[in-house]
């Protein structure tokens, strides 16, 4: 029955249209493939240049070497830059989970007047471009003498990270059955015991996923770090930007070596992040935030 209707539909459709139907997915796939080929070539040209000796107007460099990495490491003081990046990222992750997690518990478990308004307050730092609130924030930090220091960079990066933890953890806590907590209380568990022995273990996967996403975002967050970083507190993205901007003095290859180090560390973080979270899941979460 069903097949005969399908056939009838098929035969009623003009020939030309049927042909186009099979063609356009091929066209779409072709366009996607084109995008990827260019994207891969784009990253590859940076990597190849960082490994090459001299590269002028030919397809590939004349020879390959690793000495640009040594140069970049020395010139840009990469050991201290990487240390700063690590310190900022870890501090931001730990603090944003400590501040955001209790709030997301309250938001997930209670329905109270003004909840929508509060959600709006937490969505805004993610929706507004960082440069917009970064300039007044940096001005305030200058006023209290925190700009240009490590705490300043950490504080600035916390502004979008705390809301991000809240918005990803609230749906996660919502799906944990509140009856589990009630049952623990019935069995005589105190509030601290409920949090450490019952909720804690259940929350670990969510906390891990949120932490890693915050880590990736913080390492890649340019604007806020750029506005608040000083010479002693420059994270990798900002150092990369500064090196590109001062490229006249330095060899382009060592800039590219630095860019490759940056890409490499981002990719490692990304692979770890994808082990703990699914990108499409991430998107549905973004979408739920929108509805909230």
């Amino acid at each position, binding site marked *: 029955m069903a097949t005969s209707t399908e056939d009838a539909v098929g035969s009623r459709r003009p020939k030309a249209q049927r042909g186009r139907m099979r063609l356009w997915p091929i066209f779409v796939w072709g366009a996607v493939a084109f995008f990827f080929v*260019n994207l891969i070539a784009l990253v590859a040209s940076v990597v190849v240049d960082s490994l090459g000796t001299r590269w002028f107007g030919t397809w590939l460099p004349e020879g390959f070497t690793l000495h640009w990495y040594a140069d970049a490491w020395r010139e840009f003081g990469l050991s201290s830059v990487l240390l700063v990046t690590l310190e900022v990222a870890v501090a931001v992750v730990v603090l944003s989970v400590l501040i955001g997690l209790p709030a997301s518990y309250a938001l997930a478990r209670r329905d109270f007047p003004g909840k929508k308004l509060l959600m709006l307050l937490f969505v805004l730092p993610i929706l507004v471009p960082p440069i917009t609130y970064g300039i*007044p924030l940096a001005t305030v930090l200058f006023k209290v003498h925190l700009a240009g220091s490590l705490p300043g960079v950490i504080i600035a990066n916390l502004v979008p990270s*705390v809301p991000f933890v809240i918005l990803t953890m609230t749906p996660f806590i919502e799906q944990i059955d509140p009856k589990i907590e009630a049952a623990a209380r019935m069995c005589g568990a105190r509030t601290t015991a409920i949090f450490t022995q019952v909720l804690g273990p259940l929350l670990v996967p969510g906390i891990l996923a949120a932490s890693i996403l915050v880590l990736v975002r913080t390492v890649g967050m340019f604007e806020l770090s750029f506005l608040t970083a000083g010479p002693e507190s420059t994270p990798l993205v900002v150092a990369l930007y500064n090196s590109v901007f001062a490229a006249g003095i330095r060899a382009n290859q060592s800039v590219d070596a630095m860019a490759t180090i940056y*890409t490499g560390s981002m990719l490692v973080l990304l692979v770890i992040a994808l082990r703990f979270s699914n990108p499409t899941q991430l998107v549905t979460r973004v979408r739920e935030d929108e509805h909230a």
Partner: protein
Amino acid sequence: MTATAEETRTPTDPNGRAPTSWRHRLAERGVDRTLWLLAPAVVFAGVLFLYPFFYGLQLSFQPTDGGSPFANYVTFFQDPFLRDTIGTTLGLGLPAALVNVLASIPVAYVMRGKVRGKRTLTTILVVPITLGTVLTAQGLIMYAGPDGWLNKALLGLGVIDSELVLTHNWIGVFLSLVITGFPFAFLLTLSYISGIDPSLDRAAATLGAGAWQRFRTITLPLLAPGLSITFMLTFVLAFSVFPSAQLVGDPAGSTRVISIAAYEAAFQDVDYSMGSAMAMIMAVVMLVVIGLVMVWRASLYRGATGGKG
């Protein structure tokens, strides 16, 4: 709601335990000690987001050189070098957001069902989002620059006669916005399109609707609200094109976006007041665009999509 609150109050009141009943009534509305957990986050958002914002707002009305409180805004709108940055920003952000959303529709439509390699593809698509704008810009300069592989390949194939100038101009910034913005728009659109019940499409096919007709009259109207959100989020990303406009763009001319002007005012001229004024103008321009999209969205169908989400 009010009725139930009244009912719960009446039995407790005669007992004369006013504090308990007061607490009870609040708990009835969901206000109890659990809400103290919100305190750190609320204080944080207040001190580090709202306070700087309002501080910037009042600072923008206190010009460094004195004069009327609106002097910064008057200067901004009188000086074409500053005023035109709004047009430049919109001239980059709007086409980039539009192209990203429009391009993601057909790709998401093809991938809406069970397709082999979907997980792999979505994974690869997350890569450019994490690469960040600085690396994308550097890559574009290397790859699409005058000596890059792209120009070499196109010249070699005889597609073009002379080198394409794709960097240090509007095109360079636009390309970098597409590279970082398209994957983001696609992932969002894919999740919206997967939320539409496939049986609606099948029902229409049974009734004799062609592929284009089904797309235009069923999928597209159900997708439109999601597309408006995707557009807004992509536009927000494209709106703050600071690093790419500086690196692959022409920061003194055709890609002098408002964020560059605001940065220069605040940190190169050390005029925080003017910088804050421009940040406020940025916020207003962005909110106006988002508001317009929201108005358009309100006129669309807002029911269930029948699917899982």
